[in-house]
C-alpha cells in the first residue's frame, strides 16, 4: 500500500469491535454559526469512558438509531478523557436531525477510527496549522495538543480562512491561542462592514510566513492542512515551492464512508481506504493517489 499507517492500532476483541457502539449522551450543544454546532458527547458507562482514547486527527462514527450514521472528526483535546467534542455542520439527513437535538439525547459512537497527525514526530519543530472553513474543526484537536505541550514546539502559526466573518468557528478560543504564543492569522473572502482584517484567499496569509525564511526554518517545519480539496491543493503546492518536504505536510481527506473500517469501499480513493489509511495522509501519499484531488 502506498499510504502510511501511523496511528493505526490493533485492538482486542476485534470481531466484536465491528459493530461495537458506545452508548453516549449529548452533554451540551452550542451554536457556533448558523450551520455549525459544537456537541459535547459523553460515553455513559464510566468504565467504557475510561477505555476510550483517541489521537488528534482521528474520527468517530456517530449514530442515531434509525436516522443514520456518519463520520465526524474529533474536535477536542486528546487529553480530556471525560468527553469528546464534535463540531458538526448541517449537511443532510443525520446532521439535520442533530441540529434539532438537545442535551440528553442518546447517541451511538463507534471508533475512534483512522490515522492521526503524528504530533510526537513534530516535537522540536515549527508547525503551520492551516484551515479552510470547516477544516478548523479537526484542527482544534492538534491545536489543543500543541497548547498543552507548548514548550515542545518552536514557532506555531494558525492560518484560518473562511468565506465571510459570520462563518468563523471557535471565536471564543482565539485569545486563548494567542495567549499561548500561537500565531493566529484570519482572512475572509467576503468581508462584512465590520471586518477589519485581511481579505482574500488563505494563500495570502501564508505568503509572508514562508517568504524569506531561511533553509533551517523550512527544514524544521511541518504543516497540517485541513479544508476543501481545492484549498489544500494550492496551499500544499505553495509549501512545496517553499521547500517543505511533502512527507511533512499532512492533510485530512473527506470521503463518503459507511463503515469506517475498510470494508464498504465507499471511501476508496484509487484503492486506498480513506478510513484505514487516512483520513490523515502526508501529501506525498496524496500525490500518489489517483483522483484524490
Amino acid at each position, binding site marked *: 500500500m502506498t499510504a502510511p499507517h501511523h496511528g*493505526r492500532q490493533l485492538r482486542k476483541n476485534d470481531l466484536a469491535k465491528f459493530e461495537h457502539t458506545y452508548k453516549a449522551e449529548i452533554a451540551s450543544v452550542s451554536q457556533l454559526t448558523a450551520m455549525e454546532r459544537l456537541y459535547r458527547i459523553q460515553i455513559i458507562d464510566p468504565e467504557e469512558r475510561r477505555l476510550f482514547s483517541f489521537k488528534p486527527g482521528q474520527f468517530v462514527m456517530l449514530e442515531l438509531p434509525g436516522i443514520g450514521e456518519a463520520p465526524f472528526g474529533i474536535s477536542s483535546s486528546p487529553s480530556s478523557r471525560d468527553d469528546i467534542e464534535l463540531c458538526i455542520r448541517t449537511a443532510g439527513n443525520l446532521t439535520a436531525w442533530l441540529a434539532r437535538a438537545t442535551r440528553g439525547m442518546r447517541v451511538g459512537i463507534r471508533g475512534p477510527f483512522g490515522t492521526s497527525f503524528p504530533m510526537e514526530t513534530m516535537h522540536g519543530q515549527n508547525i503551520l496549522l492551516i484551515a479552510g472553513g470547516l477544516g478548523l474543526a479537526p484542527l482544534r484537536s492538534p491545536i489543543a495538543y500543541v497548547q498543552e505541550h507548548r514548550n515542545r514546539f518552536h514557532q506555531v502559526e494558525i492560518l484560518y480562512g473562511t468565506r465571510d466573518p459570520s462563518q468563523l468557528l471557535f471565536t471564543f478560543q482565539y485569545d486563548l491561542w494567542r495567549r499561548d504564543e500561537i500565531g493566529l492569522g484570519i482572512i475572509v473572502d467576503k468581508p462584512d462592514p465590520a471586518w477589519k482584517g485581511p481579505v482574500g484567499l488563505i494563500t495570502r496569509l501564508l505568503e509572508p510566513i514562508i517568504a524569506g525564511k531561511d533553509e533551517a526554518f523550512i527544514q524544521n517545519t511541518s504543516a497540517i492542512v485541513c479544508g476543501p480539496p481545492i484549498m489544500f491543493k494550492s496551499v500544499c503546492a505553495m509549501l512545496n515551492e517553499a521547500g517543505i518536504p511533502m512527507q511533512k505536510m499532512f492533510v485530512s481527506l473527506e470521503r463518503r464512508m459507511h463503515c469506517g473500517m475498510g470494508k464498504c469501499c465507499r471511501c476508496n480513493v484509487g484503492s486506498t481506504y480513506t478510513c484505514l489509511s487516512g483520513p490523515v495522509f502526508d501529501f506525498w501519499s496524496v500525490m500518489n493517489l489517483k483522483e484524490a484531488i
Partner: protein
Amino acid sequence: MIFKVCEQEELRRLFDILAADNTVVGPVQTGLDRNGSALNAFKPVADYTNLNLGYTTTKLSAKSYFLPFRESLASFQIDGNDWQKTVDYHCDRPIVFFGLHACDINALNKLDKVLMGNTYPMPYYAAKRKNMFIIGIDCQPQPFCFCRSMGSDTVLHGFDLFITDIGNRYFIEIQSATAYNILARIKTRPPEEVDHLQYMAIAAHKNKQFTSRVDTTDLTKILDMEFQSPVWKQWGDKCLGCGTCANVCPTCYCYGVEETVDIGLRSAQKVKTLYSCNIVDFAEVAGGHNFRSERHTRLKYRYYHKHRGFVEAYEESLCVGCGRCGEACLAGITVPEVIASVRGEES
C-alpha cells in the same frame, strides 16, 4: 496433501451424510435460456439427484450465502429516550457447499483477506465463513473463462475436499481433518499410479481448453499510466451504470448502509446492502459533491480497485477470471476486452 479415490456412487452417500444435519448448497439447473442452454444457480439441495455437478457456470456467484445482498447489521429497540442495540451475525447453521469451482473458492480466499484480515474483521462474514464445509469440483473452461490468466484455475487452500472426475471415479484432494473424518464414512481407496496419470492427463487437457485470456504483466503500472486513456470514455459510454457486474461477481463486496425506522416507531434497523461502484451516487458525499460523477470514471474505478489497488495491497488481483461480469453485462463489457484496450491491444 492426502489423496483418495472413490467410485462415483459413493459421492451420493457423502451427500446424504452431509445433508442429514446441514444445509447443503450446490449447483442446480433452474431452466433454459432463450438459446436453450442450461441456466444454473446455487440453491439449497435436499436430494442428490437435483445437483448438476457437471454445470458450466452459474449466472450469479454463491456470495448470497456468505455476503447476502441485504443483511441487517443491527437492530434497535426504541424505548422513549433510550434504545438498545442488538447485533446478530445471521449464522445459525453450517453450510455445505457441494460443488464449487476453483474460481469461486479462490474468490472466498480473496474475500478472506479483506473481510477477515486487516484491523477489523467483519464478523457477519467471518461467522459464516467459519461455518462452511466446501467441496470443490473440477470444471471445463468456457469461452468466457480467463481464470487461468488470473491464477485462479486451480485452488490451493480454502476448501475441505476437492474432487476431480477422472472417468467413472473421483480423485479426491483432502484439505481438512473434518473432511478426512467424514470421508472415512464412505468407501475410498488410496490412489494408484494409474489414477495419478489419469488426473494429470485431465489437467493437461483442461489447460488446452482456455480461449480467453488477460495479460496481467505489469498491469498495475500500466493502469496507472493509462489513467487518462480515452478508452475509458469509450467503455463508459456503453456502461448502463446498473451494477450488474458487481452483483454477479464473486469478489465484489462494496456496500452501503441505511437506517430505517419501522412505521410504528418501536424499532429501527441498520441494514447493509451490497452496492456497486458503477452506481451513480457511489462516491457522492453530503452537499451533493460527487467524486465520480461520470460513468466512465466509475467503470474505471472498478478496474482500478480489482486490478491495481488490491494487487498493491495483497499481491494478487481481486478478480478470479470467472467471466460472470462480462456474461451478465447487457452492454457486453468484458474484462479481457477492457484490459486489452487499455494495453492498446486490438481486441
